[in-house]
């Protein structure tokens, strides 16, 4: 049994730890900067750097469309990308519960390797700790990333301006809906998969057609709705959305209808919310529609001078109403 699962010995720093690193992590993360020394030595170009970290405790750790490994790379890559930063290097720290199957750990590492390769980022350092049975839930991962911000990129949640168009890069709420279904608490089945994806390529493609981009945010926990409220507050502007323009997958719409959920508040893991001047918006959407992860991109609203700090919805019957802010935790351990 113990040959196929992670044991406390794997985390003790001795022979088994080395074996685990050799067999699982080095096999997947190998690159010249990933050495056996205490820290990675990096040669960085001068310029503005973006630097971020994120912890991942999603439950279940594998789901339709990905697993915690893929998610842990996407989350950090996407945070860097939102600042207009090309992801360069990452570190990852694992907390693994005693008894976790080694083949599952291998799958997680393989997903990390694949996703990192796609995003063009190198994993250069890592750490493994094993927690006793019941002291952690299966596997937790923390990733940290550093990226170089393109000279032409100047994005911040404070830069939204009245007149900006608001773009989402695809249909909303898929990741949250997928996790909710994977927990199997509601007895609902639907064909929904997570949108989890690395989005540096998506960001790079829009900067190829315009430098005039004010805000980019990835809509993770709390979904697009929460991002919009954050930006309305940070930039001290109002936001008006057009309900009928918001892309929602039919499966997600159905599940939300049954459970009384608002898709705008379900998490995404592969969607950006972009604020740019209206004059640039069509061009951006055209470009996005050619991208692998943004074929359903759409303009969903605009920034206004009035209703500061609020998100107003133009409903499908042509009336206007406030988009209510959810209270409390909708769904714990979504990422």
């Amino acid at each position: 049994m113990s040959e196929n699962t992670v044991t406390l010995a794997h985390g003790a720093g001795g022979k088994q730890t080395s074996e685990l690193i050799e067999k699982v992590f080095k096999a997947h993360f190998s690159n010249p900067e990933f050495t056996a020394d205490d820290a990675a030595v990096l040669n960085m170009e001068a310029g503005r750097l973006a630097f971020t970290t994120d912890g991942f405790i999603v439950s279940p750790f594998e789901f339709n469309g990905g697993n915690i490994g893929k998610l842990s790379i996407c989350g950090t890559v996407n945070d860097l990308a939102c600042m207009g930063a090309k992801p360069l290097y990452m570190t990852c720290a694992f907390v693994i519960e005693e008894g976790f199957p080694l083949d599952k750990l291998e799958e997680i590492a393989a997903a990390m390797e694949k996703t990192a390769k796609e995003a063009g980022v190198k994993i250069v350092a890592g750490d493994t700790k094993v927690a006793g049975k019941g002291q952690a839930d299966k596997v937790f991962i923390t990733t940290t990333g550093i990226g170089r911000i393109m000279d032409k990129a100047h994005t911040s949640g404070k830069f939204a301006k009245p007149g900006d168009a608001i773009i989402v890069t695809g249909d909303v709420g898929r990741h949250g809906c997928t996790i909710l279904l994977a927990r199997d608490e509601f007895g609902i089945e639907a064909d929904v998969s997570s949108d989890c994806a690395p989005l540096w390529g998506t960001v790079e493609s829009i900067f190829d057609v315009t430098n005039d981009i004010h805000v980019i945010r990835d809509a993770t926990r709390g979904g697009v709705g929460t991002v919009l409220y954050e930006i309305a507050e940070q930039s001290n502007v109002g936001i008006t959305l057009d309900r009928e323009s918001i892309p929602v997958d039919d499966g997600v719409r159905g599940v939300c209808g049954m459970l009384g959920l608002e898709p705008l508040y379900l998490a995404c893991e592969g969607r950006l919310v972009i604020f740019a001047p209206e004059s640039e918006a069509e061009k951006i959407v055209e470009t996005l529609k050619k991208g692998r992860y943004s074929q359903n991109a759409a303009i969903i609203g605009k920034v206004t001078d009035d209703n500061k700090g609020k998100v107003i919805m133009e409903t499908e019957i042509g009336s206007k109403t406030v988009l209510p802010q959810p209270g409390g935790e909708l769904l714990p351990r979504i990422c």
Partner: protein
Amino acid sequence: MNENVKAAKDIITGYSGRPLRIMEVCGTHTHEIFRLGIRNLMPKNAEIISGPGCPVCVTPVGFIDEACYLALEKNCTVCTFGDLIRVPGTEMSLAGARAKGAKVRPVYSPLDAVELAKQNPDENVVFLAVGFETTTPSACLAAETAKSEGLKNFSLLTANKTMPNAYKALMGSADAFIYPGHVNAITGNKTCMELCEKYGVSGVVAGFTANELLTAIAVTLTLADKGEPFFKNCYPRVVKDEGNPAAIRIMERVMQPCDSEWRGLGVIPMSGMELRDEFADLDARKKYDMPEIKGKPNPACRCGDVLQGKCKPCDCKVFGTGCTPQHPIGACMVSGEGACSAYYQYS
């Protein structure tokens, strides 16, 4: 926007007849009317008010006290739809009882509570049966299942309600009702027709899409302006005059009408459902010798007036200050379908 929606919207915005108060009596209608922004379309002389439609909102304080008594004094495992957990009782909510060590478990269906009882034979499981004709059949199914399987550790604390006599009690509060489509889908339309013919109570049955709701409101405005009592089924694709015979039969087999207390409205004769004598073993009040428990609502809360359309949530002194969805004082602020909660979220 489709043609029907546009036509209904034109009728509503163009209404210039006599002043009308239209009462919806369904939590889902409350929510959808806010979500779609329908109130903002209403003309000056026609108003939509929220009546007693959300099962959590109409459940009286004393029922929460009874549930807390079973959980704390009788060590029962209380299973309930999640919204009820945060509704304040006289001294505490079920969340408060849980903090004192009581076993309170949210379930999505009464049958989940039956299953829990089967899997935990050492626990005395009580399901809190609240709701209208839409949810009562599933509680009855749970009771029949428990009886046929001879489960000894399962019972129900009932506070089920029926709408017809509530409409009569609310007659003076509104010029017309928007009847909940899913209730009529079970009960059929006979009672509503009788209310119209015998008591002059007007109303239309409405579905839940934008098109269905706007159509029902447009029809109400058109008919109400004529001044004659009316009934119209505006949800015919789902609601048949005869209702759902299978659901009606199971309710009749397991439960019988009784007087029932509604939050804010007091006791309305024959407006509740209780277990029949054949199911007395499953009646938590009898099984655990429940003493008479009289709940005392917080005097600052005006949920009762809100439920009767006598005031709007924002007229209540504690609305949005002492009473918020995070810290509710009254039931109408707890459920996402409660009128106070909807007003709060959409303002």
